[in-house]
């Protein structure tokens, strides 16, 4: 599905393919270990929120659901509400409780 983003980006005009936008998703800490990767490009329906994006990962890996309440999200390096709508090219990260210092 990732190979097809040429046809789906914000430059495309009317397309017969279901439109989608692409965002970059980052995982950190224990979440990175559960997902099994630090970074992924995802095509998702325009108008989707950060919450919708997380739901696509839960659909693929149901055990992620139990982490949802102990995560915060960021959009383009700023903490963001889960209802925030995604824009093409966004960098979204799912962040476990921070423990620096």
């Amino acid at each position, binding site marked *: 599905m990732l190979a097809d983003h040429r046809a789906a980006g914000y430059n495309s005009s009317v397309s017969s393919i279901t439109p989608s936008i692409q965002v970059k998703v*980052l995982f*950190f*800490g*224990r979440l990175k270990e559960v997902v099994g990767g630090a970074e992924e490009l995802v095509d998702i*329906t*325009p*108008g*989707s*929120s950060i919450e919708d994006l997380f739901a696509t990962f839960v659909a693929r890996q149901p055990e992620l659901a139990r982490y949802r309440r*102990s995560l*915060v*999200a*960021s959009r383009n*390096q*700023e*903490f*963001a*509400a*889960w*209802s*925030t*709508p995604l824009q093409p090219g966004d960098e979204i*990260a799912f*962040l*476990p*409780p*921070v*423990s*620096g*210092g």
Partner: protein
Amino acid sequence: MSTPPSSDLILLVRNVIDADALINHVRTAGDGAIVTFDGCVRNQSHGRRTLYLDYEAYESMALAKMREIAAEVHAKFPIDRVAVAHRLGRLEIGETSVFIAVSAPHRAAAFDACRFAIDTLKRSVPIWKKEYFEDGAVWADGELPPVPQDTQSRKRAS
């Protein structure tokens, strides 16, 4: 009057933090006080003997948040300069994971600003530590940073 944050020094490093360099960075002729915080790796956690720690960060965001903290420190306290360095990767017992230096004309502001800086860093900078014990490893319990509230009004029609 506050020095603009451009004179601050904000770093993520992968080797030993040079505390003297940070202290010298904030030292100016107009300052009567420099307060430092040295956060170091403890040998135990909840009674279990710690072998070492491994820190990771969302680096671009962590640097941005550390710069925001420095700017907030300038806005809140009559201080001169701020230097903050956080180390990433594997750290042994006793090594410094985070070092903060704040200079000010008078000591009270420097103490208050340094305390505010470390407390805010621990709560809002995306850095994580994994604790390694003799019988396994765990991600340290952390704090959930404050996040803008979810509101339906922010949802756009698609």
